[in-house]
């Protein structure tokens, strides 16, 4: 439930709420929801339909896109509509937004406001980080996502290391011939590591397309998936790191490559 002020220059205005939608929301008991939520709310048309929130009837006056809720649907409305729905008194509120004239003073201001015992104060950055960390570490969805990523890493690591190990082990006799010919082992190690590098790079190149594709699909069904540069760089780095570690693991099999295995 997001009850916000509806003025043109309100702090924390939701950009998806156009001035037209905001005008409609000034009427008490009206809400806006994301169009992708209609299905799970059992609605067909949405606009002008009436729904119940906590036993109180409200009317949908508009739809937005790209603000699909992770657990329950987001409900956008005016502060005036929100208070009774949340059973809050006129003098109660959850968040207050304030802007410093000089953004550089935001940190200091937040620190000073923290001194009051009956509230917390955060800068926009801190609050954003705090919300994301809360979502990631304290909610089931976030934890599930974390485990999925961990599982993906684990499976990916095992698959790459096994593949590289098997590829190296399959050529043990060939490497043994080179060993007999007096070629030092480090040459072969370098070759295995070079292979790991190319496998990692190829994996990354193969993954970029699908990553953007799925982000686009998610966008179409109403979930914003951000792919900022740092995230792409980090996954690229992690993938390369994993490939190289797998390569190092594959080097173990090279130790078995002794010319003696060629003699019978």
């Amino acid at each position, binding site marked *: 439930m997001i009850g916000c002020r509806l003025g043109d220059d309100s702090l924390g205005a939701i950009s998806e709420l156009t001035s037209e939608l905001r005008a409609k929301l000034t009427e008490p008991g009206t809400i806006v929801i994301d169009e992708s939520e209609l299905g799970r709310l059992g609605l067909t048309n949405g606009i002008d339909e009436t729904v119940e929130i906590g036993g109180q009837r409200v009317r949908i006056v508009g739809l937005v896109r790209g603000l699909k809720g992770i657990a329950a649907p987001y409900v956008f409305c005016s502060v005036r509509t929100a208070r009774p729905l949340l059973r809050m008194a006129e003098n109660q509120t959850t968040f207050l937004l304030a802007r410093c004239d000089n953004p550089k003073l935001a940190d200091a201001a937040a620190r000073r406001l923290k001194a009051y015992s009956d509230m917390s104060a955060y800068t926009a950055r801190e609050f954003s980080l705090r919300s994301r960390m809360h979502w990631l570490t304290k909610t089931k969805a976030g934890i599930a996502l974390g485990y999925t990523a961990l599982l993906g890493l684990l499976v990916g690591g095992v698959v790459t290391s096994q593949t590289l190990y098997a590829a190296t082990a*399959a*050529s043990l*006799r*060939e490497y*043994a*011939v*080179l060993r*007999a*010919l*007096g*070629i*030092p082992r480090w*040459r072969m190690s370098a070759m295995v590591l070079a292979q790991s590098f190319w496998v990692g790079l190829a994996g990354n190149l193969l993954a970029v397309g699908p990553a953007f594709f799925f982000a686009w699909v998610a966008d179409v069904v109403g979930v914003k998936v951000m792919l900022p540069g740092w995230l792409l760089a980090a996954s690229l780095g992690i993938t390369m790191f994993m490939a190289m570690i797998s390569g190092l693991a594959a080097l173990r099999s090279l130790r078995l490559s002794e*010319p*003696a295995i*060629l*003699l*019978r």
Partner: protein
Amino acid sequence: MNGSETTLRARNVSRSFGTGATRTTAVAGVSLELRRGQFALLMGPSGSGKSTLLAMLSGLLRPDEGHVEVFGQHLWSLSEVERERFRRKHFGFIFQGFNLFPALTASQQVELVLRWGSALGRHESRRRANQILSRLGLADRADLRPAQLSGGEKQRVAIGRALVKQPAFVFADEPTSALDWKHGASVIELLTQATREQGTTVLVVSHDPRIEPYADQVFQLEDGRLTCKTALTPT
């Protein structure tokens, strides 16, 4: 090129495997000499110790006793790294299987030895690889991978890999056993050609009597002992 210079001298080399009751003596007190440009054949029944002896003569397997001297250098007094360098400089090997990398072309298999073993550049390695492949009759096969080559062609690539650095010695363990006789004979002819043209000392291990006529000298091994040395051509 039929010099009489002795290039390899083995004295009393022995080797056993296992311990206690299961201990078997694979090679027992073998002495022999090889000369420059010689094509020597080491024969004997299966399990008589041929591979073990070849491995000790070529610096791949340390003898329990005895010593091996190549160009006056005691092979088994060298450190591991020095022996590796010695093999790199002087020894070529051919083994029974073809042992070619599935992903590399014929020419790349041969190039690898020069680029990694002789630190030659890509261009020069490729030139020499193609040169030796042409000499082995594989000019139009240079860009094919093992899966596209016949058994005889694969073994010729393996010979190219052994000969490309023009080693003083080539050691071959059963180089023809995976081939029919037509291809086997051509392998042996290519090796005798190397003895004539480069003065290479070639030691072939085989139990195939059809190779005998090509050999300058035949060593017969039985239960790890040399039973007879026949010099077929006077040296």
